[in-house]
């Protein structure tokens, strides 16, 4: 059997009385892409936040490669191989595109406390960053500040930063939202590439059903914070619960 990279056990969080994630137990093996779907406010992003440590769990555990990481801070989890991109763009606005990416790679190389070397002398960082920018087609904008990018380009940089981090667990939160039809495939191809690497696992939150259909090996459905379905795409998509709660009637038939 393939190795289980990430595992959540009865993971729960409450905000006041509101149970946003409700005892979610799930395993994510290497080499698999899991799509997480569910209505707005179902708890998908919150589930990500719990895994990557942005918010503390009320109960339950998160396990990475067999180690309990529930009590660790965000940075520590990241260093152990949890990487995520954000649903709402979240970058370093007044630094250049290239610098944004270099910071990510520098962090992976554990080079943050180098006090007395010159940053610009680390050419290997620059080279790697440029290469990734080329892959997401941002190389022409690499000296612009992030504030000067259009929304769609910022989304691309968001994805590029996750790739730069090269983690074991990739978490994408609606990577293609706001991306135009000709750009989205570039990103989706990249995700497909990552998925092909059998030592990684990918978690993908997405509302576009066609994207899920083409990429996902497995779908889990969150509803009101709880795990409502888990299985291969075709099966889950066909289930009545999902149809009812999530997709409503397809637009074209309205």
């Amino acid at each position, binding site marked *: 059997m393939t190795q289980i990279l990430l595992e959540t056990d009865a993971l729960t969080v409450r905000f*006041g*009385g*509101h*149970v946003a994630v*409700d005892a979610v137990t799930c395993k994510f093996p290497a080499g698999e892409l899991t799509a997480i779907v569910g209505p707005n406010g179902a708890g998908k992003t919150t589930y990500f936040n719990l895994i990557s440590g942005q918010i503390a769990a009320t109960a339950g555990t998160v396990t990475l490669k067999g180690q309990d990481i529930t009590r660790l801070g965000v940075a520590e989890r990241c260093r152990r191989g949890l990487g995520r991109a954000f649903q709402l763009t979240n970058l370093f606005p007044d630094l250049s595109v290239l610098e944004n990416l270099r910071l990510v790679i520098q962090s992976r190389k554990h080079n943050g406390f180098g006090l007395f070397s010159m940053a610009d002398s680390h050419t290997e960082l620059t080279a790697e960053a440029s290469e990734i920018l080329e892959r997401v087609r941002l190389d022409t904008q690499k000296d612009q500040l992030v504030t000067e990018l259009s929304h769609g380009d910022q989304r691309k940089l968001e994805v590029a930063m996750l790739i730069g981090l090269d983690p074991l667990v990739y978490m994408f939160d609606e990577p293609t939202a706001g991306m135009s039809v000709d750009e989205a495939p570039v990103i989706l191809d990249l995700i497909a590439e990552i998925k092909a690497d059998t030592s990684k696992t990918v978690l993908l939150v997405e509302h576009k059903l066609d994207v899920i259909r083409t990429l996902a090996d497995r779908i889990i459905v969150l*509803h*009101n914070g*709880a795990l409502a379905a888990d299985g291969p795409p075709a099966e889950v998509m066909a289930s009545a619960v999902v149809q009812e*709660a999530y997709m*409503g009637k397809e637009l074209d038939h309205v």
Partner: protein
Amino acid sequence: MTAAPDHRPTFADVSLGERLDKAMPFLLIPILVVLGFFAIGAPSSWLTLTVSGLAMGMMIFIMASGLTLVFGLMDVINFGHGAFVSVGAFVGVSVLIALGDWTGATSLLLNMSAVFLAVVAAMTVTGALGWVFERVIVKPVYGAHLKQILVTVGGLIVIEQLIHVIWGPDEIFINRPEMLKGAITFAGAAMEKYRLLAVGIGAVLFIAMRMILRRTKIGLIVRAGVENGPMVEALGYRLRVVFVGVFIAGSALAGLGGVMWGLYQEVITAGMGERMMVLVFIVAIIGGLGSVEGAFIGALLVGLLQNYVAFLEPKLALVSNIALMTAILMWRPQGMLPVVKAK
């Protein structure tokens, strides 16, 4: 139209502890007063200290109220507030000196009219000054704390120096109106009459501010404007007008605070407002930014604690405010009743 599918989230019960935690800020004052009673022992001393501590708190609140608007709501760190306090005091005291016959008379009515006129004059002048200050000094630096600190300190220095130019470099001594001198003794406790007046004004001010901020959209517009000004304008509000208005109000309140504080101290100097700034900032912070209730509770806490500690262990009085602030921020990192989240 079709209704969207409804997804009711799961709700669990909120425990008693969490509820108590919510109400805690309001309980702090009674708790402190009771603790004070046991620590002090002598009932008459306790009574004196408690009442005068509350009154001192009210005066601090009057000075801090304007800052709660400007710093708490508008997110402008305005060190110029201290200068407005001073200007208020100088204008008010000048009026009182000019009305020497009224203040010297043993008629409560005449005395209070003089004080009233002094307050009106002070608030008008500081309000107008606030208007100029906003236009010339603060407008270009909204959203930039550091620059705010610098320009408003610049403004502070300039205004203080102008006070020197206009009123001369000497400190001015002023006696309180006849009927506000002295104290009332009750059950062995002495209570300055003037402090009673401060309590009255503070209470009225508190209620008025609360009403205005609750009943109108002004508070909302300012808070939203600080976070995302262009969006507020895109919804159709003239943000500039609201900001200027609130700033003027804050400055005028500083003027009121100045008159009250000047009359309490009975001696005014150009630097008097500046000296109060740290304390006033502490009050605004522990109360929680933008919260009139918080500033009110905070001011009373500061007043009480200062008195109790000064009585029990004078050496510690010095650090009591800082200790209070640190303790409250450790307990509630955003202050007691934050309306605006600190950045």
